């Protein structure tokens, strides 16, 4: 982790009207002013975000990633905000997914399948990132830990609810959080952080709860997954993040969202679906899910998925190990639905998300290429265009 990098909260002096609302609102007096500007003291601000929504102008919602915090004197002297100084990471020139090198490496690897620079959907909510790090983690309390694969199934996948109580932990669908497993590894160093996509929408597992849900599969000898899967209700967990600023859900109700996943890759799509259901149940855009598992018993959320109305979500559940049935992988099912998928790919409102094991990428890509060939569409061109406009997303591991 790069301890010298900081995400600094700043106020845009060109937009601010000096109404004093932020200074009045800040519970720890991190906001102050002189005759020129209202400013945030980086040494005090704890990112509680209390000042964000009361600001009438939007001036308050500005952030710069800096190696050294701008001092109060510097901020007082500004007539406009300084530009973001670009760090050495060439690919992430304007989108910062995280400030931590280890997390950045994980996300960069996970998003490699995009085949270029990952870009957030145009209508996505602006995410908050890196409020908590290893030096200052959030402490979450386990509120529930439920097995969501059948008792007799080989895989043990769990739905774990983490409550942040009075700590501010704003996340949006598609973002991840870091879990810090306790203890040290064989070489005596603390364990590395693991990332998990949140499986709940921004307003919590239940509306207006300050919690997140995770979908965790127990891996043989997995340090973090076993740690999480064994957690009892009431246990406390160190959490970092939130992370991720590109694999996000479009807010546009007209957006079609094709979601392709295997296993715990379903977590962000559970969040997407639930967000749509809560915030815009009448949205004209389609939600389409291609979800692969070996057997129904091993498909996370199989039971709850049966209750999701087809009006909200079109489901294609595919199984590769059901006795007596042909092996069906997600790419096979995508090919079966070639007419619908081809039509959707022509639409500028369509977004594609792929999440799961790395191995699924090439099969899915080939299926898209085949469908496009038959429909006389140039898949590589379409994919490039979708990527550039934030409509093609891959997060695989």
């Amino acid at each position: 982790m790069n301890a010298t990098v900081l995400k600094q909260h700043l106020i845009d002096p060109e937009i601010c009207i000096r109404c004093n609302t932020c200074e009045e609102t800040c519970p720890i007096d991190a906001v102050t002013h002189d005759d020129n500007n209202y400013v945030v003291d980086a040494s005090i601000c704890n990112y509680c975000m209390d000042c964000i929504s009361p600001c009438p102008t939007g001036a308050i919602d500005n952030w710069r990633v800096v190696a050294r915090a701008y001092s109060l004197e510097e901020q007082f002297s500004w007539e406009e905000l300084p530009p973001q100084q670009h760090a050495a990471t060439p690919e992430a020139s304007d989108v910062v997914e995280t400030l931590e090198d280890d997390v950045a490496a994980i996300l960069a690897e996970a998003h490699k399948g995009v085949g270029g620079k990952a870009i957030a959907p145009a209508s996505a909510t602006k995410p908050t990132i890196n409020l908590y790090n290893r030096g200052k983690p959030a402490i979450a309390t386990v509120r529930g830990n439920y097995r969501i694969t059948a008792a007799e199934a080989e895989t043990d996948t769990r739905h774990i609810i983490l409550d942040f109580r009075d700590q501010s932990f704003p996340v949006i669908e598609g973002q991840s959080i870091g879990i810090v497993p306790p203890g040290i590894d064989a070489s005596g160093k603390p364990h590395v952080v693991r990332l998990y996509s949140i499986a709940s929408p921004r307003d919590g597992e239940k509306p207006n709860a300050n919690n997140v849900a995770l979908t965790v599969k127990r891996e043989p000898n997995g340090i973090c997954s076993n740690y999480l899967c064994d957690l009892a209700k009431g246990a406390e967990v160190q959490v970092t993040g939130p992370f991720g600023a590109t694999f996000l859900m479009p807010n546009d109700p007209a957006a079609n969202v094709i979601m392709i996943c295997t296993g715990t890759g379903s977590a962000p799509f559970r969040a997407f679906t639930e967000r749509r259901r809560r915030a815009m149940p009448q949205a004209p855009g389609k939600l389409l899910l291609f979800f692969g598992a070996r057997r129904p018993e091993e498909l996370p959320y199989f039971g709850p998925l049966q209750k999701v109305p087809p009006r909200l979500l079109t489901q294609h559940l595919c199984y590769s190990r059901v006795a007596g049935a042909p092996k069906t992988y997600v790419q096979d099912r995508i090919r079966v639905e070639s007419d619908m998928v081809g039509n959707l790919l022509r639409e500028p409102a369509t977004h594609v998300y792929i999440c799961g094991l790395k191995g699924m990428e090439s099969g899915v890509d080939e299926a898209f290429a085949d469908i496009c060939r038959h429909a006389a569409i140039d898949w590589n061109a379409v994919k490039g265009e979708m990527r550039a406009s934030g409509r093609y997303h891959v997060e695989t591991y």
Partner: protein
Amino acid sequence: MNLLNVDYTTKIPNNVNLTSDRQVLKALEGWHPGYLDWWNDMGPEGFQESLVYLRTAVSVDPKGWAKFDYVRMPEYRWGVLLAPQEEGRQVNFGEHKGQPAWQEVPGEYRAMLRRLIVIQGDTEPASVEQQRHLGKTAPSLYDMRNLFQVNVEEGRHLWAMVYLLQKYFGRDGREEADDLLRRRSGDADAPRMLGAFNEATPDWLSFFMFTFFTDRDGKMQLESLAQSGFDPLSRTCRFMLTEEAHHMFVGETGVGRTIQRTCEAMKAAGIEDAGEIDKIRALGVIDLPTIQKKMNLHFSLSLDLFGSEVSTNAANFYNSGMKGRFQETKIDDDHHLTETTYPVLKLVDGQIKLVDEPALTALNMRLRDDYVADCAKGVERWNKIIDRTGVKFRLELPATTFHRQIGEFRDVNTTPKGVLVDDATWAKTRDQYLPSRADGDFIESMMRPEVEPGKVASWIAPPKVGIDNKPGDFEYVKIAA
């Protein structure tokens, strides 16, 4: 119940536990139909059925008071919202300083307090009335939405004052609450109580100036009432202030965007001299000298709202702990003011002079000074906009002696620089300083509505940031919903 969260089980959303206060609930429910009638008669004309992207408070804590959604204005959830009670709060000034803040009205101050609340309450519906025709000429859907947000929140501020009247002032309070719905801005028989609130708001530049200058008086008054030792008034005003900030924003950015557009058009047309009024107006923008005149008008009208510079009423309000100074608790002095003086601008033997007066009676002057300083900062930000475009022009606040109807200078004429002039000179030069009828006609001719999402009228620049971070072409008002 949780005091931060709003109770929606009664007709009137509130965080003051109305369900267990049947008498007040009944009084408010009795007042409610009259309020809706008033809103339908005197609220924004022609848009009552439209869906407006408004913010509504769902709680008074920072995270819950700005929830945005489409609402029909008559269905807006007006309610009674007070900032949370502070444990152990005291009276922070005047002769009762150090005593616990009052939760009930102290008998000896009853009449005084009622008067303060009624005066504040009267301004809230007045501005809605003044602005009711503006929707039809909105320069964009964004501006239309901001107007309606201001209107519904002024409506809520009326509710806030009416709650205090009905809860704490019995029959008198109920009658005063009814009268707040009876008076009408500009009405010959039953006008609103304060002068500026009987002036028309005929066009959008007037509206922006009004929200910048006159609503800023509201902000200063609310700030001083938020200091009150009468705790329910303090808590009410504290929450109103968070809403008032939006009104300041509408005014400052509205005028700023008008200036921006004018300067851009001048530059594009190669006009260097801001005084080439006809040429500039021909570009479909409002010339800077006219904007200066509008400023002169609205600033001077708003100064009158502070009352006489030297006032025993103001001294009594302070001494009794009812109304403090701007940011009272941040001022480092004895908070009694019985021994100190404050310089007041007065007319002495035909000369304009600063005279030391007892600080207690000079409180209106002091609040007005704070107001002028606050205005000046906003004007400086307008000047920065002009500077950035490269146009050579400066806007300036006129002297506080200019064009006054109330206080020391009501019987004399001065120029905006504060130079005394006789009546004949004033009559000849008035139109150089204040908008003439022809200026008004020109501005009115610019007021053509723009209702296509993302488009703005010719005379104003688009906003820099959308409301609730929305993109530029967001449909803030669905007019024919």
